[in-house]
């Protein structure tokens, strides 16, 4: 394990020295500033309203939607970070001649991959949790909105980006840097599209679309975790606002079973095992 930590430390130093983290911090600060501006503007402009005789909680709608947007952005930025930290981990680094000096050391190839997983996860998971929590705090300050759950969305985001790190590492064993980056972004987009399809299927009551969405969401668990977290944000909001907000702003919101957590962990383990097997068989 100490070798994996050594490799992780090396990868983290690279992220810091190459100013990746600095750029991410700046982009995030800009996003959060814009988010705060939007949140205060939205809540200031709200007026109590009803749909006929039906009471309508517009603060919950605004808060749920805004925080849903923040969740999406946190996931998106976290995924970008995860991909850029890992997309060239094996084949890309081997083509550049960076990997060979490390692989000939008495360190297992699996250990090298584990180190890269640890490093990227140690950056991306806390990052998405932090962005989400700050957004939740801003939403609370702006409109006194408290989500039904903070823990489920935060953990969902964290585990979601770890699954993306695993896919990216798997991709890096067979694809070059650019090809892997494109492939992982397409997988990410496929997951989001599946969420939207499910939302459309739910709106039009098309069973086939809903089933396809569920299957894809579980096949790429970051999407299922995202949907689950999005649902948990406003699970306690009732009435018309509850119905509208549960549709979710980006990719739908579905209450996944508790099985999504062990599934995502097991899925990550299987993907990493496959990555390790492919890496072990690869000639460098």
């Amino acid at each position: 394990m100490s070798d994996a930590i050594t490799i992780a430390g090396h990868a983290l130093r690279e992220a810091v020295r190459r100013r990746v983290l600095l750029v991410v911090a700046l982009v995030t600060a800009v996003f959060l500033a814009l988010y705060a501006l939007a949140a205060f503007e939205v809540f200031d402009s709200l007026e109590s309203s009803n749909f006929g005789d039906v009471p309508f909680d517009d603060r919950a709608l605004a808060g749920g939607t805004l925080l849903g947007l923040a969740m999406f952005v946190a996931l998106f930025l976290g995924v970008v970070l995860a991909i850029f930290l890992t997309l060239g981990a094996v084949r890309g680094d081997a083509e550049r001649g960076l990997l060979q000096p490390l692989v000939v050391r008495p360190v297992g190839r699996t250990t090298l991959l584990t180190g890269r997983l640890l490093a990227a996860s140690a950056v991306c998971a806390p990052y998405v949790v932090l962005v989400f929590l700050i957004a939740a705090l801003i939403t609370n300050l702006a409109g006194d909105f408290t989500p039904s759950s903070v823990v489920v969305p935060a953990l969902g985001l964290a585990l979601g980006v770890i699954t993306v790190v695993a896919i990216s590492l798997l991709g890096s064993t067979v694809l070059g840097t650019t090809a892997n980056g494109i492939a992982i972004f397409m997988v990410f987009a496929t997951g989001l599209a599946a969420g939207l399809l499910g939302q459309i299927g739910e709106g039009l009551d098309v069973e086939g679309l809903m089933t396809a969405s569920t299957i894809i969401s579980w096949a790429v668990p970051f999407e299922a975790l995202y949907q689950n977290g999005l649902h948990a944000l406003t699970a306690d909001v009732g009435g018309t606002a509850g119905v509208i907000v549960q549709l979710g702003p980006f990719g739908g919101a579905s209450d996944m079973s508790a099985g999504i957590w062990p599934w995502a962990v097991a899925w990550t383990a299987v993907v990493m095992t496959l990555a390790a097997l492919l890496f072990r068989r690869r000639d460098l």
Partner: protein
Amino acid sequence: MTAALSVRAVSKRYGSTTALDGVDLQVGAGELVGLLGPNGAGKSTLVKIACGLVRPTAGQVEVVGAPAGSRTARASLGYLAELFRFPGWARADEVLALHQRLARSDGGAAERASLLERVGLEGDGQRRMDAMSKGMQQRLGIAQALIGSPRLVLLDEPTSALDPGGRRTVRDLLVGLQEQGVGVLLNSHLLSEVELVCDRVVIVDGGRVVTEGPPEQLTSPGGVEVETADGVRRLPDARREDVPRIVRELVDGGTEIYGVRVVSGTLEDAYLAAVTGRDR
């Protein structure tokens, strides 16, 4: 005594391409073996198989008695790849420290300083890779390969980016390794360098060993040249042991002699003879 490197009947195929075809090679402890051959002969593949980067299709490779690629084998070797790079953001000392941890070397700062000095980079420990010339990076690559006092050192074109001074430094270093009982496999296109330092030379072509032996055995005699008042006389069939007789006969015949030189073929001649008609 266990060989530093033992290669037996090793073959490597990439699809329909045969990179190595039944190669046998031994590097003893303290032996410096030069690996020569034209581009695409399979030299780098052989070195990569020895250090576990590439898996052979057939045959056996052992590093100090352990199967190549095993943790034990990798703990016993140092390797400088032909095409390698250290991260541009890293400092020389950091690169060595990382490899010390991975090689489980407890040499600490003293070992790092000593290695930097041996490759002529003393005082450059805090220099970043992206501020180093290619030659400096190659020197650092050699220092990295020597971390943890390996018993086998595999060097793939270690002097390709070095100036004459750097090559001299590496030659001295190789002689030092030899004296310490370290086996060295040197893959190089610089025949003069190989001829100067190697105990034995192995010439590979088309994935096969085409000839091998000590440089002096591979290089054929090229006759005797005698400098006289009438000019240089060449006696192409004469050998070193014929020199006293030749000199005596010429002096007895009244010829004044100003110099005698025994001509021997070069390793380049031997190399070209071995791969003639096969070079691509």
